[in-house]
């Protein structure tokens, strides 16, 4: 998800809003690097083909539907937001019917504790989670409950073809630590719009419209009653078969640009730039994503000195083996993990 507001700046008092943070990336609104329109600067063999394409008049009344606003940067996120893990992880997914499945997850990790000094303090913790999924074309219910009683629930319901209602919630027994969010999406012919309602008096919405065949522009706003914050953001996405470039900017001052080049069906390279003046944070990252038949390998390097990679190997149908590694050169910290996942 790529919302523009950085909730990290609002995070300190409980309830911590991690549900919001990963979805929001900050982007710069300056236009994507000047892209030569198709048909210029190509060699003679391709010119004929492009002239034919240009000959087809663009029908501005029949533009394709844009991607959802939160998926604006999805190609970049897939390559660059690698969820590396530490320790051991085992997932077992048991399908009972085509719609209904249960899953058991065990993980033994070292959790990092925030420490005052430069040392990194890690505490071994282990976790068991039981989950049940009901995946029906009209209604999707996914629930996970961990051994300490924390429930995370996701519901998606399509009352009609164009309307979609999603509810995400993390419920705990401790008071004031639960969170919930409701999204209502409407998909129009060449636009999409979404309204969001969350706890802590969170109200938000976004709208994205296809402007030309390749370009779509969007905007979003949010208002948090609890922390008295609000913001407006703008986003643009230009995608062709070979590349995707996106840009986002918000009144919170966050600016985020990304560029993904699809070198081939199996390989894509991505780069990302994020500037957050509130947290005085500037980060650029470069990554790759190899989607091969037997495995999927993703790696990235960051200007924060973090190098990370994740390998998912499909050893047999339904059996996956994952290896993850991350080294943070500035903090002199490293995380290695391995895991196995059985079942689809």
């Amino acid at each position, binding site marked *: 998800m790529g919302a523009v507001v950085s909730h990290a700046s609002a995070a300190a008092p409980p309830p911590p809003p991690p549900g919001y943070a990963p979805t929001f990336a900050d982007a710069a609104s300056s236009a994507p690097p000047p892209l030569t329109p198709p048909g210029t600067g190509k060699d003679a063999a391709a010119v004929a083909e492009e002239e034919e394409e240009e000959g087809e008049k663009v029908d501005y009344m029949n533009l394709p539907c844009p991607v959802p606003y939160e998926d604006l940067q999805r190609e970049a996120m897939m390559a660059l937001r690698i969820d590396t893990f530490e320790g051991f992880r085992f997932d077992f997914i*048991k399908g*009972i*019917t*085509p*719609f*209904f499945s*249960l899953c058991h997850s065990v993980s033994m990790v070292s959790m990092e504790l925030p420490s005052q000094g430069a040392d990194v303090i890690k505490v071994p913790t282990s976790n068991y989670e*039981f*989950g*049940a*999924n*009901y995946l*029906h074309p009209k209604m999707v*219910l*996914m*629930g996970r*409950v961990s051994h300490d009683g924390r*429930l995370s*629930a996701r519901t998606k319901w399509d009352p009609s073809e164009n309307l979609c209602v999603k509810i995400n*919630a993390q*419920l705990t*027994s401790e008071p004031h630590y*639960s969170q919930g969010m409701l999204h209502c999406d409407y998909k129009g012919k060449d636009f999409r719009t979404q309204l969001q309602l969350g706890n802590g008096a969170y109200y938000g919405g976004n709208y994205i419209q296809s402007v030309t065949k390749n370009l779509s522009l969007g905007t979003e706003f949010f208002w948090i009653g609890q922390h008295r914050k609000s913001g407006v953001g703008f986003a643009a996405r230009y995608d062709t078969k070979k590349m995707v470039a996106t840009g986002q900017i918000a009144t919170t001052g966050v600016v985020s640009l990304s560029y993904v080049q699809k070198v081939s069906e199996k390989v894509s390279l991505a780069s990302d730039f994020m500037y957050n003046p509130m947290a005085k944070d500037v980060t650029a990252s470069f990554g790759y994503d190899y989607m091969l038949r037997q495995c999927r390998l993703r790696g990235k390097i960051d200007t924060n000195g973090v190098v990370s990679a994740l390998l998912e190997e499909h050893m047999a149908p339904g059996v996956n083996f994952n290896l993850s590694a991350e080294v943070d050169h500035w903090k002199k910290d490293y995380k290695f993990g391995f895991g196995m996942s059985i079942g689809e």
Partner: protein
Amino acid sequence: MASRPSLKPKPKGKGARKGSPPADEEQSKAAATMQFVKEWTTWTMKKSKVAAHYGFIPLIIVLGMTTEPKPTLFQLLSPV
């Protein structure tokens, strides 16, 4: 003219005094209703949060077991 202003406030004053207690009562009734609605919605939210916390996973399991194709209890509980 001079006497009128002195006379006018009196009926106004009387009228205002008569008007304000009923207005006050209405205001306090409205405030009490709002208070009641707020408390009731808070109570409902708390109870529904507890219900969702305990009942969501059982709801999914019941929904999965009762819709077509209906699996058997053995299929639910066996590790294979």
